[in-house]
């Protein structure tokens, strides 16, 4: 038994050692640690006090705000206002996080997409809860049905939950299709190289034709699959009268479909270049890891904005950065925050970058595909003679 376990452990230890030695493992670890530091900072990075406007004053107002600050864990600074109108104006201008009208309501700039928060984890929720409890205490002749003060958004939520869910689904489809077909390209190229059929092929066609033919063929397959998903979504949704089928959701699906094409075009040549570097198909997955890292990052960060109530600056950057734009911009469309011109500009940047990527990838592919012996590094392939 011991020997069986010992042998098994030997195998496991070798896998551990080999895995930990891999450069891709180190890079992914560093990036994940960096993300673990940066994401919370990006989401809740502001340590400075949040300003809460107070309309009028009462003996319990200070206690309400203090209690709310303690419940939500936020640092709070109060700003007194003489009238509700002034407080609302300041809220609209973004000078305040919330306004407390003691004994009556809590105001926030935009109504949350999923209804008012019921917990005290957000500042406005805590204000509503503390304000309600204190009001109940002041007028404790008859208990109110709900102790919380009502929360009112000055403007309605940008999009509803169904559109956001569509956005999530579309971003998953974009991510999955690009990665699945991208890795297929990498494996296909590495198989052609490993089996040496590449030399027979290159005697008949140019490397660029071979590269284009491969990514086009698999691209059409991916597009066909995406089309099947979209058609099923629309037809089935319409047939059962799903709330997901309305103009906002269809817009997200349409934009997502365009991003699938653009995203695939951007990534496909890079995946082919990754395949040209390796000499064994078993190395294809490792070779393609660096290519898909930005896509993984944008996909993971999607959840931070789809379920949040605001979009932070870094996510806006991702929506215009070609490797992450296919997922991130689609999500911004689903959130209803991206203007048509912003979507168009992001697509334009991505298309231009696709041309550049194709040029770089074709150069690497052309120089690495006939190489035999050990696996090439990206830099070595770039510098090799054709």
């Amino acid at each position, binding site marked *: 038994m011991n020997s069986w376990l010992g042998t098994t452990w030997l195998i496991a230890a070798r896998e551990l050692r080999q895995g930990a030695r891999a450069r891709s493992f180190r890079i992914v670890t560093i990036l994940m640690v960096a993300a673990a530091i940066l994401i919370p900072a990006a989401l809740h990075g502001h340590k400075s006090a949040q300003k809460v406007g107070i309309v009028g004053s009462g003996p319990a107002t200070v206690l309400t705000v203090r209690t709310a600050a303690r419940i939500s864990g936020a640092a709070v600074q109060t700003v007194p206002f003489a009238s509700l109108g002034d407080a609302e104006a300041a809220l609209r201008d973004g000078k305040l996080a919330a306004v407390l009208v003691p004994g009556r309501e809590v105001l926030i700039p935009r109504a949350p997409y999923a209804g008012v928060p019921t917990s005290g984890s957000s500042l406005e929720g805590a204000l509503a809860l503390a304000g309600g409890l204190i009001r109940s205490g002041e007028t404790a002749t008859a208990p109110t049905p709900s102790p919380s003060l009502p929360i009112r958004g000055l403007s309605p939520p940008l999009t509803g939950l169904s559109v956001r869910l569509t956005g999530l689904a579309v971003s998953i489809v974009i991510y999955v299709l690009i990665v699945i077909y991208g890795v297929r390209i990498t494996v296909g190229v590495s198989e052609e190289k490993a089996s040496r059929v590449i*030399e027979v092929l290159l*005697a008949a066609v140019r490397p660029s034709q071979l590269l284009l033919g491969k990514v086009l063929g698999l691209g059409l397959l991916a597009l066909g699959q995406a089309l099947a998903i979209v058609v099923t979504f629309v037809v089935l949704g319409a047939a059962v009268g799903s709330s997901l089928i309305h103009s906002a959701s269809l817009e997200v699906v349409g934009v997502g479909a365009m991003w699938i094409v653009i995203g695939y075009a951007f990534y496909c040549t890079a995946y082919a270049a990754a395949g040209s570097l390796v000499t064994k198909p078993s190395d294809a997955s490792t070779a393609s890891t660096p290519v898909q890292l930005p896509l993984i990052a944008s996909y993971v960060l999607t959840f931070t904005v789809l379920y949040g109530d605001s979009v932070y600056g870094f996510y806006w950057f991702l929506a215009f950065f070609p490797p992450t734009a296919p997922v991130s911009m689609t999500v911004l469309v689903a959130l209803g925050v991206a203007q048509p011109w912003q979507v168009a500009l992001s697509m334009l940047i991505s298309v231009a970058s696709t041309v550049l990527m194709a040029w770089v990838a074709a150069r690497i592919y052309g120089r690495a595909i006939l190489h035999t012996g050990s696996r090439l590094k990206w830099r070595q392939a770039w510098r090799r003679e054709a």
Partner: protein
Amino acid sequence: MDTDVAPSESLELIELRRSFGELAALDGLSFSVPAGQVFGFLGPNGAGKTTAMRAVVGVIAPDAGEVRWRGAPVDAAARRTFGYMPEERGLYPGMMVLEQLVYLGRLYGLTAAAARSSALEWTARLGIADKRDLKIETLSQGNQQRVQLAAALVHGPELLVLDEPFSGLDPVGVDDMSAVLAERAAAGATVLFSSHQLDLVQDICEAVAIIHRGRLVAQGRLAELRRGGEPRLVVRVAGDPAGHWADGLAAARVTGVTSGTVSLALSPGADAQQVLDQARAAGPVEHFAFEDRRLSEVFREAVGADLDEVDRAAREERAAADTGGTRS
């Protein structure tokens, strides 16, 4: 004998140069290949044969020099009339034989129907008709070689470029391959094949180019090359196992004696009849013949080194350098 093959030359390699880092794989290589002949492109391992053939079919570009086909630089249209069998055989392992041959035929510009008809014909001709619907990876090495040859022939090429086609073949396979090459040459195709086993292929080709370190060291019709230099005689006189009859011969130099058979190099201008006369004077002559040089001897005389030694050194050099770099 006609030594000038220029008028019918179809393929020309002109001053080809190609380096891989510090290594000059081709160092101003020039030779030409006439149509309608089986032409051997010979040299030890690492001489630059594969690099030159890759340059001919356009898989790599030379640093300098030019490849010409029928008097014009090779372009994409010309390349579609070439058939290539690389040294490191390669086909899609998971693809069916017929499907693969049709695909390759179509890549070279055949219609689907023409590619299928040609693939059917070649699989029948090469004895693999019953393997058409099998995956390449399930075939024996010998049958994979046959499919590889069919892949080079399926589009009816006018120039056949075969890199070490006899390597790994059994004697029957060598005979089959030689027959196909001779048949294509007889049909008017230009057939260029490489080999590092000079003596093994000397009966297969009509003309050869021998290279060493990326440069041409000998070229010509096989018969001329093998008879070139000093004419060689092999003489055996009955009752003289030590070959003493040849002592003091003025017309020839003794190059070796094996079991009474004396090998001689005839002096320039000397008459072989003088040798025969002296042999007959010593006793009954059992054997008297001119002997051709082997191609490995042609190589040794041209380079001043033994082919096997050069080959071994090249293999060791390659093994040391095989951590990276394209094969030359």
